[in-house]
């Protein structure tokens, strides 16, 4: 059986293999080395949760700790990418997007278009996202929909270790700016990951489970919730098909629509807020292009339109649960 490693190790391995393959790949961000340059440097921590641990010593000079200034180092990464480097900048928590958004959406995302296709910006911006860590409203958001809205950015939301490694390698090799989002709660998830380098292409959804009654499109950590729900629903004789888009931009609309045409029922599970979300985007897609196949209303299961609460009890209620998916699926199956 193939080797099993965690989501976190898969990300580390992807960075390591790409840094070995291409000297232009550098890693930069707050504490990504962690202690580098100080007397305790052999204890380099490797990022706030240790994802980049070990890279500093393997790739001397190419894992760069930056000041706490997202606008500064994200801008520097974008500039370095324009000049031929392949920087992987870590934004730590995606919630810090606000202070460096201009560098991303008005600079990196626009260069190829505004310079007539002559400029390339092969920068990757990694960030942690998601609720469930008791990290409160400023460190728990799911902002992939914000990036997805902006043409010129590619947005990656891996749900498992295999995809995390292959999609990160693809992100580093891609010649456009890529936002690579890692759910904190998935870091310890184990899965089979080949030792060799490999890529997973953008815009290719994974069909995680096949079924003919209901299509569940789920992103990131929500894929696990959908799998729990589908296992439960199977016992009730309801066969769910689970689709993990893997990238929200580009989005594999064909795989989603083909599935909805087969099942006639759609649930979208998205951990972010409901308004202008991936859930509403995918629901709109199906309503517009698969309307004739629908046997029941489309259901969106998301967090509420409210900041993520700090209270344990409230945070658990905030996150879409398998139970909510099960209830929605049963109501769709019974509709008419």
């Amino acid at each position: 059986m193939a080797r099993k490693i965690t989501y976190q190790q898969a990300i580390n391995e992807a960075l390591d293999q790409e840094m070995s393959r291409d000297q232009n790949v550098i890693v930069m961000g707050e504490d990504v080395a962690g202690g580098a340059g100080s007397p305790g440097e052999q204890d380099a921590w490797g990022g706030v949760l240790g994802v980049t641990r070990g890279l500093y010593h393997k790739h001397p000079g190419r894992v760069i700790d930056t000041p706490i200034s997202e606008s500064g180092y994200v801008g520097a990464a974008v500039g370095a990418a324009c000049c031929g480097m392949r920087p992987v900048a870590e934004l730590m928590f995606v919630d810090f997007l606000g202070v460096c958004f201009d560098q991303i959406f008005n600079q990196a995302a626009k260069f190829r278009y505004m310079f007539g296709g002559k400029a390339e910006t092969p920068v990757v911006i990694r960030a942690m996202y998601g609720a469930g860590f008791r990290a409160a409203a400023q460190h728990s958001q799911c902002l992939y929909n914000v990036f997805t809205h902006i043409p010129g950015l590619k947005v990656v939301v891996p749900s498992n270790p295999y995809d995390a490694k292959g999609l990160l390698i693809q992100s580093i090799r891609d010649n456009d700016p890529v936002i690579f989002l890692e759910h904190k709660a998935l870091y310890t998830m184990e899965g089979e990951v080949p030792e060799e380098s490999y890529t997973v292409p953008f815009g290719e959804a994974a069909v995680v489970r096949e079924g003919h009654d209901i299509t569940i499109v789920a992103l990131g950590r929500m894929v696990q919730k959908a799998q729990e729900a589908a296992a439960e629903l199977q016992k009730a004789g309801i066969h769910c098909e689970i689709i993990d888009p893997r990238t929200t931009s580009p989005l594999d609309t064909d795989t989603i629509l083909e599935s909805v045409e087969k099942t006639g029922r759609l649930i979208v599970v998205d951990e972010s807020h409901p308004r202008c979300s991936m859930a509403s985007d995918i629901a709109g897609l199906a309503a517009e292009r698969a309307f004739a196949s629908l046997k029941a209303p489309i259901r969106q299961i998301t967090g509420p339109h409210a900041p993520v609460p700090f209270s344990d009890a409230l945070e658990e209620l905030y996150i879409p649960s398998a139970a909510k998916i099960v209830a929605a699926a049963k109501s769709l199956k019974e509709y008419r």
Partner: protein
Amino acid sequence: MSAIYPITMPKWGLSMQEGKVNGWLKQVGDTIEAGQEIVEVESEKIAGAVEAVAPGLLRRQLASEEDVLPVGGLLGVIADASVADGDIDAFVTEFQSNFTPAGEDEEDQGPTPQKIEVKGRKLRYLKRGEGGEPMVLIHGFGGDLNNWLFNHEALAADRAVYALDLPGHGESSKDVGEGSLEALADTVADFMAAVGVDGAHLVGHSMGGAVALMLARRHPARVRSLSLICSAGLGEEINSAYIDGFVAAGNRNALKPVLADLFADSSLVTRQLVDDLLKYKRLEGVGQALSTLSGKLFVNGRQSSVLAQGLGALGKPVLVIWGEEDRIIPVAHARALSGGVQVEVLGNRGHMVQMEAANDVNRVIARFLG
């Protein structure tokens, strides 16, 4: 005479935890011979049929179409007409109350693949069974040791059976060197030496058959017999659209129609099979390996090496098995063979005959080896 036999969900491969019932081929009350196919079952990787282990009447169907059962779960019951209904019900009740599905974390996963370094190349292999005259299973172009999923355990009933990943395939090193049949055959011979197998019965599928033939020519002392399944190396024709399509396909939509040519029943091409092959094809070095091999072995749409003439001169027992509907290498290659070669053609089966008609293939090989 009054024995009661359970029919249970089989375990096809290491990762199989549960299977889905696709449909019953026999109904309650039907008379059943041992070895007859009774119920069709599907894992996430492949669909197949469960055989009766003993003769009798099919007395109970305990799972319906679409039901998902854990491995080892009770599908049905076979017993003579003389067994009372009450006894059968008691058997079922007892079975169900004693049955606990094997958890994913449990140790009892059976043998697991190993890796061995052979002349600078890492080769993955899986050994099943012990003793006897050993056997080596050699997969075809783009395949891996999992191609023997339905054969390996059955063939290993009374001998040690090794299935390996050829260079460029599965989890073995992706360097195929010059990509010639000679080089592949030498690698398999080196592998045999490394695992301490002096002489073995070789079973090769497709390109693996040609590798086995070449091995018998170059290292005759290592070969006791040859079982060649839909084998390359016995004629010039080959479906070059398949080879080229397989090498070129970069996504599901491109690969799926290509794979349909592998089976007589193309519904056997499951999404999982396509996804697994895509994962393999996306590994660094695989594209290069497949191009090198196809450029060497299948030139201008023809097979470069035809070894059929030398079969008799090898002085080894040779068995040739073919699926009549093979759309990759024509069955005519089997029918053209003569003199001392045992040829078995299985109707209504395709190129992956060892998967499509696993039970038949296993029996033919077992009989051939005596």
